């Protein structure tokens, strides 16, 4: 789906990635690589395929969109141990990616100091053509991740729950791209407070993105939030 954001033409991809054709820039938020391993360390032996799955989707996008630049919008790894638990083949796949393009790690709250061997450049913010890419959304305009937005809508008598982008004229938040990344309902104040004048949610469908205005979204059951 095309989105005109602060005068720039951006593409919201149903994978949850953002593509900026003019700069051939692909942005993905919250990969949370090695989240399965982080849980396993604490005794919950989740399937060890999350990093495979996330990288496979990312490799597919890089093949099909042929970006020059890939920006990981923070929380690339789930925790500090992440880079160390990567198996050799995953390490190789990831560093092949970071070398195939200009790769930028925006540093997030979960991100460790990344080993040089992984490749890519670490930045706290990237500014391009006046658009600011950062990890945590801010009152100032910009493109960010961190919140893992998801939204619930009624569709043909069923309540659907999907990850989504959220945007108003100034602030765009990407959904989490990682395979094991959960979501936060966009009616939670952590998201909605960012948009005092309301926002649209762009829900990820199987093959396309669907836009819904803030007013039709359903709250999370069990939350103290209602639509205003």
């Amino acid at each position, binding site marked *: 789906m095309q989105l005109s954001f602060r005068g720039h033409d951006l593409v919201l991809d149903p994978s949850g990635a953002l593509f900026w054709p003019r700069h051939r820039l692909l942005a993905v938020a919250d990969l949370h690589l090695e989240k399965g*391993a982080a849980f*396993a*360390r604490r*005794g*919950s*032996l*989740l*399937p*060890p*395929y*999350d990093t*495979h*799955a996330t990288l496979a989707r990312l490799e597919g996008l890089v093949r099909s969109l042929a970006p020059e630049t890939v920006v990981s919008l923070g929380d690339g790894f789930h925790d500090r141990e992440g880079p160390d638990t990567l*198996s050799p083949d995953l390490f190789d796949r990831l560093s092949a990616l970071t070398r195939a393009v200009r790769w930028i790690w925006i540093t997030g709250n979960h991100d460790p100091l990344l080993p040089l061997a992984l490749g890519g450049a670490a930045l706290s913010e990237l500014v391009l053509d006046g658009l600011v890419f950062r990890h945590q959304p801010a009152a100032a305009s910009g493109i960010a991740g961190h919140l*893992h937005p998801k939204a*619930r809508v009624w569709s043909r008598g069923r*309540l659907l729950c999907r990850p989504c982008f959220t945007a108003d004229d100034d602030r765009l938040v990407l959904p989490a791209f990682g*395979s*094991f*990344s*959960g*979501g*936060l*309902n966009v009616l*939670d104040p*952590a998201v909605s407070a960012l948009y005092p004048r309301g926002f649209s949610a762009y829900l990820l469908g199987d093959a396309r993105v669907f836009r819904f205005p803030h007013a039709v979204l*359903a*709250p*999370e*059951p*069990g*939350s*103290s*939030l*209602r639509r205003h």
Partner: protein
Amino acid sequence: MLEVAQEGRDALLIAPTGGGKTLGGFLPSLIELTECGSSGRLHTLYISPLKALTNDIARNLLRPVAEMGLTLRIETRTGDTPQNRRRRQREHPPDLLLTTPESLALLLSYPEAVPYFASLRCVVLDELHALAASKRGALLSLVLARLRRLAPQARFVGLSATVADPPQLARYLSPTPERVAVIAGGAGAEPEVRILVPEGPMPWAGHVALYAAPAIMREIGAARLALVFVNTRAQAELIFGALWRHNPANLPIGLHHGSLDVEQRRRIEAAMAAGALRAVVATASLDLGIDWGDVDLVLQVGAPKGIARLLQRIGRANHRLDEPSRAVLVPGNRFELLECLAAREALHARELDGGGIAPGGLDVLAQHVAGVACSGPFDADTLYAEVRTAAPFAALSRRDFDDVLDLVATGGYALRTYERYRRIERRDDGLWHLCDPRLARQHRMNVGTIVEAPVMRVRLGRKRLGEIEETFVAWLEPGDTFLFAGQLLRFEGIRDNEAIVSPAKDRSEPKVPTWAGSRYPLSTELAGRVRRILAAPATWRYLPAPVREWLEAQARHAVLPQAGELLVETFPRRGRHYLVAYSFAGYKAHQTLGMLLTRRMERRKLRPLGFVASDYCIAVWGLEPVDDVAALFDVDILGEDLEAWMAESSLIKRTFRNCAVVAGLIQRRHPGAEKTGRQVTFGADLIYDVLRKYEPDHVLLRAARAEAATGLTDIRRLADLLVAVEGRIRHVRLPRISPFAVAIIAGIGRELVAGDVLDQSLDEAVAELVAEAMAD
């Protein structure tokens, strides 16, 4: 009983309620303890499915023991037992410990379990019929297998209501069932069962029988204390409301179901015991064990669905063996009336339906293996042999066992990346050891096989009314009204994770909370009897006139389903083409069949639009007529189509989540501990999707598929049916809707939240259907 005890044999005591069987189970232990005195070690273990029952039995035992002047320690241990008392019980065991399967599994996970249970002489299992066939029963069977090894001298005594297949229960009780003494108590007087038939027209659809409220009130008025049983909590709310609307004498009537707040339930139970109530509307929450008061009449509203359950419920009335229990069945619609008749015949013939004991789930086994590891190092071969002595796991293959061992150790993934996070490992002594003692605490937080759907408390002012499912709350808007705890409530919003409500004034169309999985399956035996009634017009003269006329009309306008065939009707109606199959396989099997049929019709470009299922039949409709019915119902529908549907369905995802929790892969959400701060949820769906993609044959996916297939969707029953009728599908093309089809088509659109609120007999749409069907 005493003789059997002296021989040291296991025993299965089968008696209807009121036979005094619980005391019978304890008697040998009490005598032995009287003779030998307390040894300061555990002598007898009592296990029941309900906490409340455990407490009740303890009270009933303490009194005679005190009167006899015995100095025995009798204690309960359930989820409600405080930590300090649990610790004391571990250090200083009582003579008699009364507990639940989950608490026992927990107790067995401590290293001191071996000396603790070594002295055990007797294990009493109460309400065994209610436990054995369930997932909890699978876990309990493993726990019992372990107890047998820790205490080889102990006797096992099972107490059960009358069941269809006593040998099967004997096998559950003991790996050497031929050594079990099966003691059948007197059958008791045959119950007096009446069927309430409306004076006016008999409803075509619905299960709540709201039409019968005045008649039910008359029955209540003539009884001392009546129990009004219904099948679901939603029905309980509806019929309770309806009874109060027809209660000019203000007879005190209470409501009791599992989602009401404990305080509310305790109040009702106390009022029953004190004789302060005339009737209680109840679900399965009052099925078992405890006798609260002097019940002299049982009403079953809605079809009974199973003969054994009906018998158990009827047994709640009149606990004296020499007098018959009195019961009234209140059918909700025409097919239900036939089912009530069938049930009465079955009771008369003393025929019961038996739920078979299904193979135990691999997720349950994983939990048990983890529990064993927490209690101390174990040898895999010995444990495998021990597990196979449990009936549900008798056919467990070594490959499945090893896969489960691997699941507990490393998650069981083909990609061996979790070696360094092993939970259990095989050491040089050849035994499996727990790697980190902290894992034992994590395991103990997770014991049990019941994974509840997320619920939310309902608060009215300062009072807690109970809990409703979160998915229902998600449907509510502030200002919506709904029926709960017998009151009409207005939803105000959510505060501090509770649904805040106020009394509602507007009575228009309240919603009724529904609870997932609360529907009972129609038993095969009962379905068979209904079919036999349909196929034997000679027996119809005993039927109430409206129902007899309905059957005769079906014979005239269409045909009646005969034994050994599947009747399928097709007819056009208002631009749609309908197909109705009378397969009598139960609601769940029909739901599955509906999904499969519409999938298949879509592929054949028959443009299906929807389907509706009941216990008796399934109706599908679309834009194109179905010509080749036999091909549509081909047995291979259960092959690829089923696989494809299962993989995508929310059912399998929910089942997978439960299996993952039971197996300890995902930690249970504990009330109060969850949802602090930001609510980032990380669903089991994501895990399911990834696992299915990368390791479709993983042991947990196998466990989830097996559970979904046998337990939840009754696939086997569907398969049996389709195989049985292969080549004998009777396709009848009709010019218009048949009298039987009205009963299902009238139910379309009623499966919504409001369910049965409408009075079906007055519904204009139904009247129109009936007119069409009966036109000559």
